[in-house]
């Protein structure tokens, strides 16, 4: 092999090896710096948007329409009677509702998720709670709110705009804190 042929092929080898090396190095860095999939947060596109429509008959036979509650904070709570955190957060919701019912500045609406009417009625009879509960054809509301699991709650501002998404069980204190925080932020 002549000198020039040798240097030619060496250069060719380098030229082919280099891009592969760079690509693999990038891939390595990428894989090494990614956090495991399960740690990624769930985001919501609804924040700041007008709350999607929720309307329908409640378990008590009334008609509920979220737009009738403009001027009030509404906690839209997606739940199921078989989910443990839902059972745990329920007294907190009762607490929250009772404090605000007299003032009238906030209310709760519960939307059952993949559940049956009889179970939901029993659930409220057992655990208390005096606010609208929707059971019929609630799947479409869940889709419109982008609900991925229960419990999941949305805080709808008096303007009718979704102000917060809360995944997992909530407490009355947390809800009040959120509301006062949002009011302060709006005033500022």
């Amino acid at each position, binding site marked *: *092999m002549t000198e020039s*042929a*040798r240097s030619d*092929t*060496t250069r*060719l*080898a*380098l030229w*082919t*090896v280099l891009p*592969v*090396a760079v690509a*693999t190095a990038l*891939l*390595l860095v*990428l*894989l*090494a*710096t*990614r*956090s*495991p*999939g*399960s740690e*990624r947060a769930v985001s919501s596109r609804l924040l700041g948007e007008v709350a999607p429509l929720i309307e329908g008959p409640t378990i008590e036979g009334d008609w509920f329409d979220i737009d009738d509650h403009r001027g009030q904070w509404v906690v839209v709570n997606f739940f199921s009677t078989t989910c443990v955190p839902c059972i745990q957060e329920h007294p907190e919701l009762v607490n929250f509702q009772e404090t605000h019912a007299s003032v009238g500045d906030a209310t709760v609406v519960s939307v059952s998720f993949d559940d*049956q009417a*009889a179970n939901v009625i029993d659930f409220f009879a057992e655990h208390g709670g005096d606010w609208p509960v929707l059971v019929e054809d609630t799947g479409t509301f869940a889709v419109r709110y982008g609900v991925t699991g229960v419990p999941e709650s949305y805080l709808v501002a008096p303007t009718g705009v979704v102000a917060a998404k809360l995944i997992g069980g909530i407490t009355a204190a947390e809800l009040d804190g959120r509301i006062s925080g949002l009011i302060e932020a709006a005033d500022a």
Partner: protein
Amino acid sequence: MSNSSLGAAAVALGTACALAGIVIVALGLAGRRPRWFADVVRLVTVMTAASVASVVIMERALITRDFTVAFVAENGSSRTPALFNVATLWSALEGSILLWTVILCGYVVAVVLKFRHRRDDPMVAWAFLTLFVVCSFFFLLMLGPAAPFGSFDPPVGYDGRGPNPLLQNHILMAFHPPVLYLGYVGFTVPFAFAISALVTGRVGEGWLLATRRWTVMAWGYLTLGIVLGAWWSYETLGWGGYWAWDPVENASFLPWLTGTAFLHSVMVQERRGMLRVWNLSLVIATFSLTILGTFITRSGVLQSVHAFVESGIGPAILGFFGLIVVVSLGLIAWRGDELRSPGRIDSPISREGAFLANNVLFAAFAFIVLLGTVFPLIVEAIDGRTISVGNPYFERMTMPVGFVLLFLMAIAPVLPWRKASTTVLSQRLIWPAWIGVGSMVFALVVGARGWAPMLAFGLGGFAGGAALRQVVLATRRQGWRGLVGRTNGGMIVHMGVVLIAIAFAASNAYVRQGEFTLQPGETVVFADHTLTYEGSDFVEYPNRSERTARVNIDGAKVYEPGIATYPFAGQTIGVPSVRSTPIDDIALSVLQFPEGIDDAVILRVTIQPLIIWLWIGGLVMAAGTVLAVVPGRRRQPTAPTSAPIVEEVMA
């Protein structure tokens, strides 16, 4: 002594042997230890014994339900049926590394046996060095981040949760992982010889001849492992799917693609002495991709149904992957000038031309799959968005590649080496072409529509016809020997591929799925099949309780899909039931049972044609691989420039 201390001791012993192996071979290479091979034989014996012992100890712990071993406490249970109890070994990370290591040791023993007469050859020495490095890595994993023999202090009356329910409800789970690992790990041997070829500078054909059968066998196991995995998901996941382009499935498919490319391009190098760098790169890429696949499966970085629980071994595997890539690329760059191929291709319309095209296509296929798999991570790293890349992308991008590959499969086997005339080609291909057209017409008559599946049937028939022609000619010439050997076995493999391609196209294009709410006694007609829901049953098993629906299909036989609750694992899974015929499959799964026993059940029905041919095709491919490993008729090199280097032929 307790199982966990015995097991830990076995792992430690194996690690010591693997590390000592590196030192001994290095000393041997440096000329300081002339009788290094005898030491290697001893070390490999002890290392393998230790690895086998560790597996035996773990199995003993599983079978005797020894919950003082943390792995058994976490994954075992006294209620798991015997077969799945044994298979629990590979249902979780630590045990799967045990299995991996014991298979690796098995391959190393085979290398010792095969190459014991070539102990003076530095190429063999360097291959052993590489093998010991890989062994050391896996033993060290078990010593550190994936220690299988951690101990546990079980409270009185403790019983474990058992393996993931999905991993203990189908017999295929007992076979799919070990077979897949036989494939993955098998590529270590060709990799070791590729590295030693680069180091010793003997980059000619010697290392290829040395490892040819190993590669074919590893490839065969990988193929079978992938098909068994698809079969398992079809039978257990309940959505009538068998391939979802899931990251973990892709991780097993990537080395298969590069391995398949290698099996073809290697013939160009053997016959014509060309594509040396390319072949070395393919072997190295295949091995690296098995390691990358292990990372994807184990690290939890990519979401997947199949992924194991996240663990700390991600960084270690990634580091090892980096090491492999750095060393290999460094060696290739260093040996660049000697890798220059002496040969050249005379005409693109020749066997070697077709192999070249085949390799470009397989490389493109692998690139598409790899890019699609990691692309969400790339986008997330660049601008923080989370996106998905799924079925529609992979199907759209790989379909054209698949079509061209089928076309090549039809014409390449009849192409002569060096140069082909169109006359020869048209004579040899006319009958296969008629078979292709015939299958299209047949498909039309039985009601198939749509250009894409029709093209797949046509090209599939064409390729199948070409393979058939080769086998018929070979058996006519050589009798039964026309079925064995690499070329003839390869044609059988091609037929298996054709079966899978046709079944894949048909099942994808003509799948019908429906959800039905049925009262007991109610009948529904769906896609020309009559389904009657007769009622439901409830059965208790030691490890689960199962509620099943009796569904009568076409008034002929009752199938019982159900939902199984594993109280101790805290999980509820669907148990689909499948009616298979050569024409179509009906997969039933229960989406929801009613509250009351007499209420309606929600049933999902998936009807797909030709599913069974996927599994048959997979078995045909495996059979073809076995035939290909049986020595066939020897051939002479055709061109002067393809002559193997003399020294290596003698060795």
